[in-house]
């Protein structure tokens, strides 16, 4: 199945008529604001869940609406509505304008033009998920269940989830911008529980890309299920994690979360502007070892954090944040960039039309280094090897961050030995960046993630080669 080349004008027309957009913007501007913006979203999602050996439920749904933002001075007014009629949009525009009220300026006419520079994110989608029968999606789940359980009777529980979404957006503003995007995502995950003498352990594996059902041409769900089962079984033999400060080697693809937390959030311009980041005022300074070049790149086609335009209508960018250890730039949305007299870096994102955009990461990665991954482990006398990381969290103001290890092993005398139980690692961003002393040649992207900030979740990707941090605190219970 080949998706036809989408017509931008058509996509825009289907979401909401151009004259309604222009009218709403004119209403929004009537209190004398500098900027009015309308964000229209039509998102269809479907998911299917297998749990406990049964196809538990299929869920499908649609949410559609518009968020209208009005900026006057330092104040932003925002209102949203699920009513995309002329009167619905006008009411939301009036509410947003009232929220950002200033001196009255009277209505100001606005004309918007489709932006020919912006592309459409899903042009690469070969098999639109909505074209795939539900029964085919269900078969993936039952195949994964059978494969996981075939790993042994100690696998006592399997949950598998399939999900897809198609998110069509339109952004228009009082500068005359009109941009659209069509974003398709497909995701599959398997979680297993293994039961043994030591209690219960879990293992998880997931794959997600900004593609259609062709995701499964690349990802074999039975292989994923077996890896998840193996993870849970391995951990049955795990001993308590050590406690204290020691070298930590993170496997390929895993370390992205580390950078996401250690410095990614701290490089978001909104936090920097409020001095709520340890990286505020440090552009041009050496903040990391020379090995570290950190890039946030929303243009990486297929990756989980990819899009053609951000949720303010700005094309996604490839932004170098740290080059050879030197801090070169922050990530920007429209408002923060405007205050600095520069342009947005394409990092203005929002969870849905019901949310205000803010500065967010996309795909954040460190490229391959020059070290042999095996040598990195062999050169580590005693420490921890983390094969798979869980989520993390950071306090950007202090730089203190944690991230979870969901599959980890001891390194003893340069050899990966016994598995250890789950726990958090804790470090301080600016310190950890100066303690990265080895980068492998084996770059890989990590698992698809959801990044939370201020209660909004957005899909993000990350990647790194094998890397070593000379000292991190491992939060286990063993001495």
């Amino acid at each position, binding site marked *: 199945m080949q998706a036809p080349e989408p017509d931008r004008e058509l996509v825009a027309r289907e979401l909401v008529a151009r004259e309604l957009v222009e009218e709403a913007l004119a209403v929004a501007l009537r209190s004398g604001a500098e900027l009015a913006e309308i964000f229209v979203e039509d998102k269809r999602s479907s998911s299917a869940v297998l749990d406990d050996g049964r196809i538990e439920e299929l869920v499908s749904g649609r949410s559609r609406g518009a968020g209208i933002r009005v900026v006057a001075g330092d104040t932003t007014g925002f209102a949203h509505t699920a009513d995309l009629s002329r009167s619905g949009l006008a009411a939301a525009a009036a509410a947003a304008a009232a929220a950002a009220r200033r001196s009255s300026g009277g209505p100001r006419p606005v004309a918007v033009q489709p932006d020919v520079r912006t592309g459409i994110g899903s042009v690469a989608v070969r098999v639109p998920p909505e074209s795939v029968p539900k029964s085919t999606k269900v078969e993936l789940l039952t195949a994964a269940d059978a494969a996981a359980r075939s790993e042994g009777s100690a696998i006592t529980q399997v949950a598998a989830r399939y999900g897809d979404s198609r998110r069509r957006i339109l952004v228009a503003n009082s500068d005359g911008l009109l941009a659209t995007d069509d974003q398709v995502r497909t995701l599959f995950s398997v979680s297993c529980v293994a039961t043994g003498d030591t209690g219960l352990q879990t293992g998880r594996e997931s794959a997600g890309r900004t593609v259609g059902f062709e995701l499964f041409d690349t990802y074999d769900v039975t292989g994923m299920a077996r890896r998840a089962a193996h993870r849970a079984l391995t951990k049955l033999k795990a001993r308590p994690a050590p406690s204290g400060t020691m070298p930590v080697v993170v496997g390929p693809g895993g370390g992205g979360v580390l950078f996401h937390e250690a410095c990614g959030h701290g490089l978001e311009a909104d936090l920097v502007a409020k001095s709520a980041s*340890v990286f505020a005022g440090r552009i041009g300074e050496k903040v990391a070892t020379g090995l570290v070049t950190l890039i946030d790149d929303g243009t990486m086609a297929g990756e989980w954090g990819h899009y053609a335009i951000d949720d303010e209508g700005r094309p996604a960018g490839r932004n170098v944040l740290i080059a050879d250890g030197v801090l070169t730039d922050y990530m920007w949305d429209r408002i923060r960039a405007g205050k600095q007299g520069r342009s947005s870096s394409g990092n203005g994102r929002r969870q849905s039309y019901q949310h205000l955009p803010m500065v967010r990461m996309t795909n954040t990665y460190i490229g391959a280094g020059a070290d042999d991954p095996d040598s990195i482990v062999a050169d580590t006398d005693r420490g921890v090897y983390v094969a798979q990381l869980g989520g993390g969290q950071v306090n950007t103001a202090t730089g203190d961050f944690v991230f979870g290890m969901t599959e980890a092993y001891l390194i003893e005398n340069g050899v990966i030995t016994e598995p250890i139980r789950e726990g958090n690692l804790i470090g301080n961003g600016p310190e950890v960046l100066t303690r990265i002393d080895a980068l492998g040649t084996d770059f890989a992207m990590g698992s698809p993630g959801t990044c939370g900030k201020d209660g909004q979740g957005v899909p993000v990707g990350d990647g790194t080669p094998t890397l070593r941090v000379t000292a991190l605190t491992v939060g286990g219970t063993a001495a």
Partner: protein
Amino acid sequence: MSEALLDVARRVVGWAGANEEVEAFVVRARETEVRAYEGEVESLTVAESQGIGVRVVLDRRQGFAYAGTLDTDALEATLRESRDNARFATADEYAGLASPDGVEPAPLDLYRPELDEFPTDAKVALALELERATRAADPRITGIESAEYADVVYSSAVASTAGVAAATSETGCYLSSFSLATDGDETQTGYGYCVGREPSQLDPARAAVDSAERATRLLGATKAPTARLTVVLDPVVTAQLLAIVGSTLTGEAVLKGRSLFADRMDEPVAAPAVTLIDDATEPAAFTASAIDDEGLATRAVSLISGGVLRAFLYDTYTARRAGAVSTGSAVRAGHASTPTVGAQALALRPGLRSQADIVAGIDDGLLVQGVTGMHSGVNPVSGDFSTGAEGLRIRAGELAEPIREVTIASTLQRLLLDVIEVGADLEWLPMSAAGVSLAIGDVTMSGI
């Protein structure tokens, strides 16, 4: 407002086919959020949202679909889609909707017109006052990460072919302040909250002082050597811990082999000081509601009593499968989610002493003011527990030097058994569990 929603739900249920069970859950919310920054309104969001979730059970197979609009076309399409989804589910003898169980909903007064009618200007004034008071609380407060007023007027209704017809309206509001304290190059953060059903119950001065005190008292914090000691969890931290404990005590986790307490009914699973109750009929709870998200009356459930495991939480499905009855514990993440079983308003039975008195009795310990990574470092299936922590060292009964960048680790099983004392300072927070000071012995603090 909720009666109109019930009409919408009943309308959809009226379209049910023969032998088809249909349940409609309809919500509407009106929310306002004001953020203040440097004496100005940084953002003001006013939002109305609504939606419907439709469950269909046909031949013991369940389907679900949702929509974010309530026009007739959307309602019809949602029912159709839900019906279609049901065809692909595995037949399950326990599948089915909730039936009225004769339990009357508690007479709770959770809707306050005072909030519904509270002018936007007054909301803005509260947010500005919170920001001003936080800055004024201490000269070392040099910045505000966020100072926010938020409220919601929430209505929901459930109707079904099984005879359920219930509706509720609730109001709630809160203030939250996240402050930055600096001393030279060093920055520390603190938080303060207050919650209410109407704005007159909010106390911006208290949230501001809490926020400033938490930030300033961490100034000078250092990493500490690894040690095994007694921790005292601040109320907010306890509430986060309770939310995780609650997730292990659901019928869902038990039936699916994911609960570490599955085989422990009527056994001691915690210290005798621990009595844990989930009670959405507690009117002081921010998440109080007289009906659950399947339309049954909520009720108090004693999960752990005097340290002994006494009950699990059940919704209709898990109750049927377990041969039990629903405890009125069906919850939904919103109209786009199917109901599942979960805790709604968890609280420990408070003890007799203040946090200060508890601290006075501890020779060597750590007052944990904040934790990070609860979602990544705690596994509710295995019980492994490890989180980042910051707070104040306790030495000879006194709060001593501030500590940061350490982790505290144990297992959920051991944490509950190692509880030494529950404080008297129970407070409801903008979440589904109450905060209270909690002293726990023998926890590993990892540092240098």
